[in-house]
């Protein structure tokens, strides 16, 4: 039995990605939006072990406005680091090997620093599915291409 294709999206302001979501839908993906890290991790676990759904990709917003609760990361973080919540999630949870077959798109208005690009390059060396970074500005061909690639 074929499973439904899920695109799991960490985004606290879904209204800003409404158009992208329509493109992703047209590529045959069911969008599941989590506004907090807690909801994201619970959804990730639920769909990873689901018999009816398959996670085809994850979109991570780095700059999660007002994210306060970083307790899922099991570390000592201040509420201010919520601004980097997506990045911290990638580093401390999504880089675990159990998730390395799920393509990840870092999709944010925040410019990615060189150090972070280096971290992504390093992580990608050990991942069968890659981590990609795209700047969230407007609908780009790159985003549509990424959706098509993961849904194939």
């Amino acid at each position, binding site marked *: 039995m074929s499973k439904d294709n899920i695109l799991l999206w960490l985004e*606290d*302001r*879904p*209204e*800003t*990605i*409404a*158009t992208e*979501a*329509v493109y992703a839908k047209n590529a045959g993906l069911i969008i*599941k*939006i*989590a*506004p*907090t890290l*807690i*909801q994201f*991790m*619970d959804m990730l*676990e*639920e769909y990873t072990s689901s018999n009816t759904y398959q996670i085809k990709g994850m979109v991570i917003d780095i*700059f999660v*406005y*007002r994210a*306060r*609760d970083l*307790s*899922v990361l099991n570390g000592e973080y201040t509420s*201010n680091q919520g*601004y980097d919540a997506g990045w911290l999630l990638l580093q401390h949870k999504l880089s675990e090997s159990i998730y390395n077959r799920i393509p990840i798109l870092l999709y944010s*208005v*925040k410019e990615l620093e060189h150090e972070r690009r280096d971290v992504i390059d390093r992580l990608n060396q050990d991942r069968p599915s890659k981590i990609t970074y795209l700047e*969230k*500005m*407007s*609908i780009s061909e790159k985003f549509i291409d990424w959706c098509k690639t993961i849904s194939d």
Partner: protein
Amino acid sequence: MDDHSKEWDLFISHASEDKDNFVRLLAEALRDYGLSVWYDEFTLTPGDSLSRSIDRGLANSKYGLAIISESFIEKPWTEYELRGLVAREIEEDKVLIPVWYEITKDKVLHFSPPLVDKVAIITNNSELSDVPPQVLKAVRPDLYEKLVREELIHISRNRFPENRRRDLFLAHELKQLSSVLMDRSNGLQYMLKDAQLGAEIDRRANIMLSDIFSYSENIRGLADLTVNGGFLDPFSTNTPPELLFAKNAAQKEREDIKLESIINHIFRSQYKKLREKNITIESAKDIQAIVINTHKSNIAAILRAILDNAVQYANNNTLIRVAHKISQYSVTIAISNIGQFLSDGEEYRIFQKGFRGYNTMHTSHTAQGMGLFIVRGICEVYGIGVSYSAEELPQEGICRHIFSLSFPKNITKIKNEQR
């Protein structure tokens, strides 16, 4: 004599009885603001001629502040000073600023009838600490504005210790808003090319126009804040949820709240409408075990907004279901109803400030699109994840709307640990 030649910004005429409780504090506050103040304790030194010094102060101050109190009106000396200030006021406009310090209008009238007609700062019904800013605003509006601006910046910096965060946030919001605005403009332009505007296109065009309007306003507001150097985070501190949170948090401690009792209470208050629409409520039995430790009024506000919505937009003869799920990091309550399908893209905008969907525009003339926006704001304060999704149903144009509230485990208890 022009103002630039004045030695002091302000001369304070007062009775010595009022020094300890008010005047010294006022003078010090004004001096701290950066005003040059003629106040006897600052200005007079041993050996000075009192009368000559006061005459010089009166003549060389731009403004005179008269602290009119019961002690003041009994003194011949203060009356002398006041006469000097009044004389100056006749020659130069707006010199005298009276402050009524714990005195009634009748007594001021008896003391000096013209003084009653002057716009005064009155302390009777306000905090004494409100007086210095009012004086500053009257004497040095430029300095007042600068200080207010600096205070706003100071507040924002306290909130965001690293200025970089503020810049990032501004860049983030401006990029997002302008990107949406451009997208909507293009969409509208494309649609208007079609001269035959059908009902659906007309509806969409109206939604886009409304977007353009509200986003333009937001961008303008942010741009103004950037240009002025001030930053008053209009998206958080000024929003009702923040204010509500601050108010409730200040008034009450967090408490253990049984979700079921709040949900039942809200449904009971909707009894008439539920009966009219013949809606059945199905609530999972286990919800009675869920206890949330937080501020009751805020959680009630969240649930009321979502449940009221569920009832309002449910089709007749349908079911509203309240279910729950316990996961590793959270306890999720899902509230679902069956109603009209949302148009493409609307499902992602449901928590947006001012958003009114097609359903709302046709069923309610009073909805402002603030209810769910406030829900999201309150949820963010507590780290509660709130999301919306829709499930298609076989019948055309109908779907199941699902609102999920994910309560973090650290504020949730499961009574008797029933799992």
